[in-house]
């Protein structure tokens, strides 16, 4: 049982972490290759749209555009939303499109009114036009799509400014060169490449996975104790069994081989069952046990079903960390019992 629990927990963490990373990388594949932010005294500041021309002039830049987005704290439910003006298909002024998480938190649907505090004072009432599909909930859960006019009313940003600029390049191999050219031309900017975002996601989820693995150290310790207990002695029944087998004509090697297969069958079954349970837990129940740790804290949790993805190398590592030590742990005491004369094993049992 301890064995199955350990494999289940470890495999759950591995499957969930790698699936979330995979999901994030799939989502980010669609992200712009380059994001340009303006920084003032090391902090992000709205970027003038006049920069667009200077960026566009750099050879290799295919297109660039300003984006309007920002975080909005909703005191009614205590959640943060991401307000975004989409590049195309923006909602009509006075209406919004909300993510599934926002809809759940506010219990709002199409036709309902959501209030936003304007920067100039007063309330801006926006009508929910539609809800974003569940499919992209990992990134769209907290999204609120607004028109540029409504965005500026909430954030007070001047018409000539954007939150940041996104650029696409013709040849991805020129990305670094182009980024260097932008940084040279516009010294108050910071350039973030898509690969850097991917690495950050990777690092965040690996770190969270690591924290969980650390928490599971207790379970691992229990497993080590179980294995050690097995390795340090046999139960009287097992000793008797080996004594009988030796007495009826089994060689030491026959006993060890039998015990090895016994250990292999037990550990392989436990491993398979643990991995299967972990698969069901992660991909059918969205890793409920670890979701808070893996997803991070939020009032507004995205609800999504992870795309099944199994990292074979991680499972192989788990296999060697659990099955092999257990199999060895069963062989050692059997070998110790089976090298003694069968009558010695039998004597204490009569």
């Amino acid at each position, binding site marked *: 049982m301890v064995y199955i629990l350990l494999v289940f927990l470890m495999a759950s963490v591995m499957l969930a972490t790698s699936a979330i990373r995979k999901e994030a990388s799939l989502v980010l594949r669609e992200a712009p290759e380059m994001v340009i932010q303006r920084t003032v005294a090391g902090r992000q500041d709205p970027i003038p749209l006049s920069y667009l021309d200077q960026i566009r002039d750099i050879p290799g830049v295919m297109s660039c555009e300003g984006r309007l987005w920002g975080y909005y704290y909703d005191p009614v439910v205590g959640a943060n939303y991401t307000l975004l003006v989409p590049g195309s298909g923006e909602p009509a002024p006075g209406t919004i499109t909300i993510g599934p998480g926002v809809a759940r938190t506010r219990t709002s649907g199409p036709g309902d009114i959501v209030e936003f505090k304007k920067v100039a004072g007063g309330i801006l009432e926006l009508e929910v036009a539609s809800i974003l599909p569940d499919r992209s909930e990992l990134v769209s859960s907290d999204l609120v799509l607004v028109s540029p006019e409504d965005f500026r009313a909430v954030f007070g940003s001047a018409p000539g400014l954007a939150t940041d600029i996104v650029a696409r390049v013709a040849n991805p191999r020129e990305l670094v060169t182009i980024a260097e050219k932008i940084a040279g031309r516009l010294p108050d900017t910071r350039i973030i490449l898509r690969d850097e975002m991917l690495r950050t996601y990777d690092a965040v989820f690996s770190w969270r996975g690591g924290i969980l693995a650390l928490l599971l150290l207790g379970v691992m310790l229990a497993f080590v104790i179980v294995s050690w207990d097995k390795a340090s002695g046999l139960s009287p*029944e097992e000793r*008797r*069994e080996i*004594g*009988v*087998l*030796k*007495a*009826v*004509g*089994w*060689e*030491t090697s*026959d006993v060890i081989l039998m015990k090895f297969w016994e250990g292999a069958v037990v550990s392989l079954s436990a491993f398979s069952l643990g991995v299967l349970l972990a698969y069901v837990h992660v991909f059918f129940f969205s890793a409920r046990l670890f979701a808070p740790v893996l997803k991070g804290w939020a009032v507004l949790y995205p609800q999504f079903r992870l795309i099944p993805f199994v990292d074979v190398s991680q499972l192989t590592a788990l296999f060697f960390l659990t099955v092999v030590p257990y199999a060895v742990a069963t062989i050692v005491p059997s070998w110790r019992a089976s090298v003694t*004369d*069968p*009558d*010695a094993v*039998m004597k204490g*049992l*009569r």
Partner: protein
Amino acid sequence: MIALDRARKVFGQGRPNEFTALHETSLLIEADRMTVIRGPSGSGKTTLLSLIGCMARPTSGRIHVLGREITSLPERFLTEIRRRTFGFIFQQFHLIPGLTALENVILPAYPTGERRSVLEKRAAGLFELFDITAKSRSRVEWLSGGEAQRVTIARALINDPAVVIADEPTAHLDSKLSGEFMATMGRLRDEGRTVLIASHDPLVYDHPSVERVFHIRDGRIDGESR
């Protein structure tokens, strides 16, 4: 023929708890006969059987089994002799729980590498011989004392041994079952097997099939009858 030449067995030699279970013993057990080692508990009967049955080595002295000196053989060869030459019937039956009667019976033959179907066929013959065919697929913990005893005898015979060794075989049987057991041993002897029994049960050593009785006490053979 089995011969002991000044065989001696000491446990815990050189330690404070050193104990001589069998003093220098020379003995000749004739082939195709039924011999009983008679003696009280702790007299050294089981130790003697262990030495003869290649389950332990003597501390000193030599043992010959069917003309072959076995004392100096490596463990692998001893095991081979134990498997091919001897069939053991233990006092506590020593069947392996969790397995069926059939699986227990074919256990001694597994290392021979014979096909399972061949072993099962041979076991079926033994089950029929001992009238326990109906119990062959039952787990051994569900068997009665008499049935378990017969499964133990079947297990002892699966490799068609020349010598059958039984240690206190009637200790857990009533008089009727003890009588049946001795009759079975008589049949085995008639088939041309050597039967060696250690017992302090008069139903055994007084049985008409028994041809020779050695008396053992305090690790020494102190008499012989019949």
